[in-house]
C-alpha cells in the first residue's frame, strides 16, 4: 500500500528543522560513525581516487553486526570506502536490523535524515525494500542478493555477484589439500545462492581430487555461534579436515578449525589473519566498486533504466564480480595454487562456467547434459545437490 506522498513530504519537512539542529550538535560533540568517516576521508582524501557527485545522503542497512568478520563487515567496509572516496556522499549506516517491519522503520529514519539512496543488504530484506521503493518513488532502493522476477519500479534494483565462481576456487583449494577427502560445509539456509555455492564448492574440489566429498550441516541461522561450533565439531569428528561455511559470521567456524589443527576456507571476508596456518583461501566481498557506480548513477540522475535498475550480477567474465578470491594461505601447495589461478583465468573466458555440463545430481539425475552451459537464472534456481555432496537439503 503506497504511502501518501503528501503525508511523507509534510513529515520530512517537520523533521528537517530539529534534525538540522540535532546534526549540528552532533557534529560538535562528534560521536557518530559518519563523523569518524568524514575525518578519515579528509585525512586520506588526497591519495584516493575521489569521485565527485552532487551532495547526496546514502543509507546502508545490515542485518548483523558491522564487525562480524563476515558478510556485514564487508558491507560496512564498502560503505566506508564510499564515504572516503565520495566526499559529497553522506553515509548513514544501521546494523543489527532484524528482518521484519523494523527494516521499514529503519529506512524511514534514514529518509528523514535525508537519504536518497538506500542499500538494503540482507537477503531477507527483499520484500521490505521493494515495498519501500514503491511507497517512496523519490528514494532509490537497492537490494543486495535478491532477484526480482517481476517488472522493476523505476527506483529499485538488485545487485549481486556470481558467488559460486570464487567459491568453486575455494573448493579446489579444499579438495587439493584434504588428506581425508572429506570436506565440511556449515550453512545457514537452503536458499538458492547457498545451494549453488555448495555445489560449486564440491565441483571445484572434485576437479582436483575426484575422491573429495562435501559433508553438509545446516544451522538455520545467519549467525548462531553455538550451532556453528556444534556443526563444526560434528563434521570434524567425521574425519573432515577442511571446513567452509555460509553464515554471516565466520569466527566460530574458523576457530573450530584452528583448534583442531585443520584447514578452513572462508566466505564473505578475508580472515586469513585469524588463522594464518589453517587458512587455505576463501571468498571475500569487495562491494565498494558497485556501490560507487550505483551511487554515482543515482546522484547523477541516470539510475532509471540503467543496469542497476534491474538484477545486476557481476561475474568473472566481466571482471566485476563483487565476490573475489581471498588471499591464498601458505598451506596451499604451489602446484595447487597454480591450478587455482589458471582456473580463475579460465572462468574469465566467455562461455566458461562453473556449472558447465555434465553436472549430475546426488540421485544420479542429470542436471545439465555434457556441453550445456546454464544461465545465471538457471543456476540461481538449482534445487539439487551434486554428486559428491553428502547430506540432504531440508525439503521445500
Amino acid at each position, binding site marked *: 500500500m503506497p504511502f501518501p506522498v503528501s503525508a511523507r513530504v509534510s513529515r520530512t519537512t517537520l523533521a528537517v528543522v530539529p534534525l538540522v539542529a540535532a546534526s549540528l550538535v552532533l557534529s*560538535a560533540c562528534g560521536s557518530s560513525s559518519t563523523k569518524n568517516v568524514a575525518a578519515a576521508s579528509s585525512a586520506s582524501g588526497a591519495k584516493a581516487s575521489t569521485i565527485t557527485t552532487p551532495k547526496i545522503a546514502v*543509507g546502508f542497512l545490515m542485518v548483523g553486526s558491522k564487525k562480524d568478520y563476515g558478510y556485514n563487515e564487508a558491507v560496512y567496509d564498502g560503505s566506508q570506502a564510499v564515504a572516503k572516496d565520495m566526499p559529497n556522499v553522506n553515509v548513514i549506516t544501521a546494523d543489527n536490523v532484524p528482518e*521484519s517491519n523494523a527494516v521499514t522503520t529503519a529506512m524511514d529514519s534514514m529518509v528523514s535524515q535525508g537519504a536518497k539512496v538506500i542499500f538494503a543488504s540482507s537477503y531477507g530484506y527483499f520484500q521490505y525494500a521493494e515495498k519501500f521503493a514503491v511507497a517512496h518513488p523519490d528514494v532509490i532502493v537497492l537490494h543486495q542478493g535478491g532477484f526480482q522476477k517481476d517488472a522493476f519500479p523505476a527506483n529499485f534494483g538488485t545487485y549481486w555477484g556470481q558467488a559460486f565462481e570464487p567459491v568453486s576456487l575455494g573448493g579446489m583449494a579444499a579438495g587439493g589439500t584434504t588428506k581425508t577427502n572429506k570436506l565440511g560445509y556449515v550453512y545457514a539456509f537452503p536458499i538458492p545462492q547457498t545451494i549453488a555455492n555448495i555445489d560449486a564448492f564440491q565441483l571445484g574440489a572434485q576437479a582436483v581430487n575426484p575422491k573429495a566429498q562435501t559433508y553438509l550441516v545446516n544451522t538455520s541461522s545467519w549467525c548462531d555461534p553455538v550451532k556453528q561450533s556444534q556443526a563444526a565439531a560434528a563434521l570434524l569428528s567425521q574425519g573432515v579436515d577442511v571446513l567452509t561455511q555460509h553464515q554471516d559470521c565466520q569466527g566460530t567456524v574458523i576457530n573450530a578449525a584452528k583448534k583442531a589443527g585443520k584447514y578452513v576456507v572462508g566466505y564473505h571476508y578475508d580472515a586469513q589473519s585469524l588463522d594464518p596456518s589453517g587458512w587455505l583461501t576463501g571468498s571475500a566481498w569487495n562491494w565498494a566498486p558497485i556501490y560507487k557506480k550505483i551511487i554515482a548513477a543515482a546522484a547523477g540522475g541516470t539510475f532509471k533504466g540503467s543496469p542497476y535498475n534491474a538484477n545486476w550480477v557481476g561475474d568473472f567474465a566481466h571482471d566485476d564480480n563483487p565476490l573475489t578470491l581471498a588471499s591464498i594461505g601458505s598451506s596451499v601447495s604451489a602446484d595447487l595454487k597454480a591450478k587455482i589461478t589458471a582456473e580463475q583465468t579460465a572462468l574469465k573466458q566467455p562461455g566458461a562456467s562453473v556449472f558447465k555440463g555434465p553436472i549430475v545430481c546426488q540421485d544420479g539425475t542429470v542436471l545439465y547434459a555434457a556441453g550445456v552451459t546454464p544461465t545465471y537464472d538457471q543456476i540461481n534456481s538449482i534445487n539439487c545437490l551434486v554428486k559428491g555432496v553428502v547430506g540432504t537439503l531440508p525439503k521445500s
Partner: protein
Amino acid sequence: MSLTSEPGAETETPVTRDDLTVEFDSPTMVEERPAVVTTGESLADRIRLTDWHRTGVTVGAYVAALAAFGILAAVKGANPFTVYHSMLNSTFADTGSIQQTFLRSIPIVLAALAVAVPARAGLVNVGGEGQIILGAVAATGVGVAIGSHVPGPLSWLAMGLAGAAAGAVWAGIAGVLRSTLNANESVTTLLLNFIANDIMLYLIYQPWKDPNGSGQPQSKPLDHHAILPKLFGSSLNLGLIIAAVVAIGVWYLLQRTGWGFALRVVGGNPEAARRAGLPVKPLLISSMVVGGALAGLGGALNLAGVETQLRPGTTITFGYIAFLASYLGRHNPAKVVVASVVFSAIALSGNGLQISNGLDGQIVNVLLGLIVLAPLILAKHGKRSA
C-alpha cells in the same frame, strides 16, 4: 532417569520439609498474601494518583532512569540531549513517526493485556511471545488458505479469530497444566515460547515456504484483500481500532463483570475463593485462555496489518517487552496500555539512535530495563497488591 538415587534424597535433615511445610491456608500464608481487593481497583488507583508524594517519587524515578541512560549514552560518546531529542524525533515528533509508534504498539498492547488478565487471577503469563507467534502463524495459515476467495472483512475476521484461538490454546495449555497438575505457569509459558518459535520456523522453512520466494524462509504473502485496510491514507491500519476496542473490552471485563471480580478474588486468595464456592480451576484456566487470545490476536493483527507475510524473527521480544509494560502498569488495563505505547516507542527509537547518534540500536533495551528498574529502586513494592 532416576532421581531417587540422588545424594541427599533420603537424608534431608535436619531441616525436614514436614517441619516447615505449612498448610496453604495457615495464618502466616494469609498474612503474607495481598489483601483481597473488594473495592473497585479504579477507585483505589484514583486515590493513589492524588497522592502527590507518590507521584513525585514516581516521576523522580523516571527522570533518574533517563539520566542513567543519558550517562550510558555519554560513555559511548553520544551527547545525551541529542540522544533524547532523536528518540523523541523518531517516535513522537511528527505524524509519520507517531504512526509508526502506534503501529508497533498494536501487538505489544494486546500482549501486555494478555499478562494483565491472568495476573488478576494471580497467574503469571510470560508466554506472550509464543502466543503472539502462534497468533501470527494461525492468521497466516487461514489468510493464505482463504486467498482471495472471500471479501476482505470476512478474511480479516477469520484471521483475527484464528490468531486469537491459537494464542488461547497455547496459553490454555499452561492454564490447564497449572490448575490440574500444579505445573508452574510462569515456567511452562516461558518454555512454550521456544516451542512456538520452532513450530513457526518449521512451517516457514518447509511446508509453508513460499514457492515464489526464491528459497527465502517465509510463507506465501497474504492476498491484498486479506491485508488490513489502512486508515484515512495513513500508515495506520484497522488493527489499531480493533486493538483499541479490545483494550476497552478488557477493561470492562476486568472492572465491570462478575468474571473480572471473581478473577480478583481468586488472585487474592484462592483458598478463600474456593470456600466461597467460586469455580477456581475454570477461572484460572479462563484467565489464561483470554490472555492468550489477546496476545494471539495481537500477533494476527501485526501479521495482517504490518508484516503481511510470516518470516522468522518478526516478533523478536515483543512478548517480553509487553510483560514488563504490564508489570509497570501494575496490570491495570489503562496504565498497561499507556506503558505499552511508551515501551513501543522506546523499542522503536533504537533506529533513530543508531542512525543519528551512532549508538548501538540495542541500547534501548537498557532504557526499557531502567524504566522498570527505577520505581523498584525508589519505591518499595513489597506488600502491595497490584
